[in-house]
């Protein structure tokens, strides 16, 4: 399925991901953490399909358990002592819960990044920073151009070397390593020498003239404005909640969080809407399509 959120302007994508990743890293409050984890998981499945589910089960769950266990082994703060380790250090309920929360947070952030990688393609990133850091974003664009090219050339060189009996697949380990390094070395020369023409091509097309602009094929339209306004409003609510101390939880020495109030429920709802925004957008688009199709 094509992701509808990816079609929004890169600014929207970037602001959204900055907001959810930052808050995902920051809020350890169980409700917020839960919202973030569920949303990240839903969106990543939506984006990457079944592959993610497998990845989650086989990679992230063991990591989660490992990290939840390792924290109490080093962190002995907390009031509720459950038992003592062999070296005499106590294991506390607080530290176990903290470990679990931290582990969930870590996994959530990883999931958010997997969504980020699918949505924020390199050209969007380069567009966003093209105006602020034009030279560096041009470098990024060039590197992204060069890397696949170099990898193809490594293949070419490796084949050519194979035909004179010098490939990584030939000879003993030391010979192979030598051959691998030789291939890298040939590639380096080739890359450097051929880049001279690239520099010529840049100069020839006026690179270095003052007042360079940066072009983009992205348009900021009404839909993007609405989305941006919504995201900013939701972030504002979240920050207000944060300032009022509703979003934080204290683990040590004993667990305590702010009481649930109307306002805090409002904040949680805002956070849920923010995190689920791409999922909602996708669902809305789907319904719209079906509606249009049924009418025609």
């Amino acid at each position: 399925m094509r992701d509808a959120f990816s079609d929004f302007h890169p600014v929207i994508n970037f602001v959204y991901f900055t907001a959810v990743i930052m808050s995902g890293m920051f809020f350890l409050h169980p409700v917020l953490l839960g919202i973030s984890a569920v949303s990240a998981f839903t969106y990543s499945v939506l984006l990457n399909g079944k592959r993610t589910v497998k990845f989650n089960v086989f990679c992230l769950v063991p990591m989660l358990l490992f990290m939840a266990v390792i924290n109490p082994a080093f962190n002995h703060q907390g009031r509720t002592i459950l038992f003592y380790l062999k070296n005499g250090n106590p294991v506390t309920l607080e530290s176990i819960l903290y470990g679990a929360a931290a582990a969930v947070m870590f996994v959530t952030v990883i999931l958010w990044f997997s969504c980020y990688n699918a949505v924020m393609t390199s050209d969007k990133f380069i567009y966003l920073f093209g105006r602020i850091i034009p030279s560096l974003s041009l470098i990024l664009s060039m590197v992204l151009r060069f890397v696949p090219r170099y990898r193809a050339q490594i293949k070419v060189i490796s084949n050519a070397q194979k035909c004179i009996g010098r490939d990584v697949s030939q000879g003993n380990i030391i010979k192979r390593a030598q051959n691998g390094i030789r291939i890298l070395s040939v590639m380096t020369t080739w890359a450097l020498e051929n880049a001279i023409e690239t520099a010529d091509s840049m100069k020839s097309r006026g690179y270095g003239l003052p007042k360079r602009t940066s072009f983009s094929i992205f348009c900021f339209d009404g839909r993007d404005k609405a989305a941006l306004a919504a995201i900013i409003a939701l972030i504002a609510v979240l920050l207000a909640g944060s300032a009022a101390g509703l979003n934080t939880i204290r683990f040590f020495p004993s667990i305590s969080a702010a009481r649930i109030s109307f306002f805090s429920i409002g904040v949680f709802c805002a956070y849920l809407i923010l995190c689920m925004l791409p999922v909602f957008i996708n669902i809305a688009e789907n319904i719209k399509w079906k509606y249009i199709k049924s009418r025609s």
Partner: protein
Amino acid sequence: MEIYKIKELSFSYPQKDKEALANINLNVERGEFVTVCGRSGCGKTTLLRHLKTVLTPYGKRSGKIYFMGELLEKLEQRVQASQIGYVLQSPDNQIVTDKVWHELAFGLESLGMDNKTIRLRVAEMASFFGIHTWFHKNVTELSGGQKQLLNLASVMAMQPSVLILDEPTSQLDPIAAMDFIETVKKINRELGTTIIMTEHRTEEIIPVTDRLVVMEEGCITADGSPESVGKKLSKEKHPMFFVMTSPMQIYAGVQNKLPCPVSVKDGRKWLDLIAGETEVKKENSRAAYGKSSENTAIEMKDVWFKYRKDMPDVIKGLSLKAGKGQLYCIVGGNGSGKTTALSLISGICRPYRGKILIGGKNTAKMNPEELFYNNLGVLPQNPQALFVKKTVEQDLYEMLSGLKLEKQEKESRIREVVELTELNDLLAMHPYDLSGGEQQKAALAKVLLRKPRILLLDEPTKGLDGCFKEKLAELLKGLTRQGAAVIAVSHDIEFCARHADVCAMFFDGSIITENTAKEFFAGNSFYTTAANRMARHICKNAVTVEDVIELCRKSKCRSNI
């Protein structure tokens, strides 16, 4: 009005005594299509690079260049960047960014245009060049021809009044090259852009050009319309005549007073006048091409291959037999699997069915030592993939470093190969400082050090000028005389027709026809040499320029009688 006026331009590179350009005088009119030709190293590129200040090489210079009446070096960089478009040789090296749309906009960004203007220009260019279908792609996904078209389009987006192209098609296959040349012609015809171009592919470019400039050793030796240049060079029996088209070469070989034909179409008319009246006996008596199994150097038996299990077959039941002492050329379209066939022989790819035998032995059962020493030599399409060291000489020694040989033995072997490939003057140079043809020779020398009995070549004439092609052919013939088998995959029909012993047509994963070069091309009607296309309505068997000249002479003798 003149767009360029070059006055007494001389130039020499630092630390070199010889002048790269000597007293060049040249005026280029607005809207002209000028082709500069000459063998590699004659100063074409140096001359072209002088036409844009940022690309001008360092060195000692005298003389003046005017662009639209103004001294070029005084002209503002911004004006130069947009008014003088420059397309370089390699399609890959010129592309800077990773997206097609970004590359198209690159020059306009440099000029500081706003988003709206760029959007319009980019859209215009994409439509004019037919790029809109791959506008959003990554440049890595493009073919060589598309890449070069993209380079042209991104230069044209700046709306230059003059377009300079330095051997733009040398890295392209014939069909992509023709497309490219057509596009350049279209730019010249429809937009009125002045074109200044250098090119080795003279067969295609001379018929569309308005003016031909021939250079030799940094001087201009001839300048004028292709007909007049052809006439002049033929009168002087000039060695540069090999750069002309086949009809022109044939014209020069036959004494007559008719105007010089440039294209195949003109050539046919001209030939009708010279030899049309006389009936030429169709010679069909040539001995049928047969294969003897005794001298087989390499054999492929019903070979099937695909890159991955779930992908379609690339090679389908290919059988091939090349004899010792043969130059075996495989021709065919792009993507027909020619190069894959070579990599099957060299063992880079393994067939999933069928056998490949070298000297009667299955290659699958040979170890690399056995296969690549004294047996199989492979020259890759890009010779740069072989260079490791910083001088040619060290590179040659490197090739022998793994072998257990006496120092003297090594030296004598290298001396032998160096002599054969005429590398003597180049030994101290960095491999990357050599020209394309010289790199090819150096790479070939490297491969020859292993004393291969079978030599595989992938596009050996790519980017070479006519002179180097002849030298390469001579070298290869020398090897075949010593009993080596040479198998070449090539797009270069003229080269194959002139020099191959056997030609094979590759199509859809296997060889569909195979014959001696002459019979092979005589049997094709489209996929054949320019000389043959010109003369085949009179005599099918005239394949090379020499054949047609011979034909004309014979018919002349007869008509004189």
